[in-house]
């Protein structure tokens, strides 16, 4: 994986997390907040799994 590909994934993940945070503030609801937090955790897990996969293949 190139540096550009890694950085693109990190950037998109950060954009997604920022969007989730904006949704929680707009929704102003504990259930939505927990759902967005869980979604964010899954996205970060996916990112880490992708990077771990690349490392293991090497």
């Amino acid at each position, binding site marked *: 994986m*190139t*540096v*550009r590909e*890694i*950085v*693109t*994934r*990190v*950037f998109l*993940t*950060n*954009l997604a*997390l*920022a*969007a*989730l*945070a*904006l949704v*929680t*503030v*707009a929704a*102003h*609801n*504990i259930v*939505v*907040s*927990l759902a*967005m*937090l869980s979604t*964010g955790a899954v996205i*970060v897990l996916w*990112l*880490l799994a992708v*990077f771990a996969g690349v490392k293991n293949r090497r």
Partner: protein
Amino acid sequence: MIEQAIERLWVLGPTALVALVLSFGLMLLLRPWLARYAMVRPNARSSHYQPTPQGGGIAVVVATLVVAWGAVALSPALLHNQAGQFLAVTAATALLAVIGAIDDVRSLPAAARLALQCIAIGAVITALPNELQILPQVPWSIERAGLLLAGVWFVNLVNFMDGIDWMTVAEFVPVTGAIVLLGLAGAVEPLPALVAAALVGAMIGFAPFNRPVAQLFLGDVGSLPIGLLLGWLLVQLIISPTRPLPSPPASCEAKRSGKLIARISISAPPIAA
């Protein structure tokens, strides 16, 4: 509410734009000088193979602070009772920039570096309102000690990421951009929104120079102080008392928990590599 957002956009938009132009211009001016005096050799975690100039952070820090203070000078109401905090953050940012600049040119001993970082971050935490408590269940002194530890960790984490092309940009632009949007919606105080706008503009001005393969790095002179600025912004995001939208009926505790979760989720951007 839309009128209010448009009114804020008239402040935050030009702030970001001026910071972008100033940062980009300073980068162009400084680059030849940095190439002569502040070259960094590649190491194990670098994504470059050739010696590359560092110190572009000078432009980012100067553009952020000059533009933010300029906007405050034009409209003092933006300070909104946070003048003391802003002074402390500015002084601490300058201190970290000086430490970073010295470290970029000649390596400082780790203990001295850590002690000076603790002083800078401690000054910012001391300037926070005394009544502030993020987690009321935790004793105040322990929370403050935790904030100091988190601050030192965060500043060094940002510094660590500077060795990877565009990584700092990929982290700062979405987070500071989101803080600006929350500022437009009235969910954060005017001052943090203003600083976020200046910082996002300055980082976008830096982005073309740090594009893989990077022609310029932030250096410690930039990565340490902007780490502090972002850390302060994230604390402001958590403690901000205002809300963007009328709330539906809900218990106060549920509101408080939801607010904290929302803000913590944006306060923890993923860090790769």
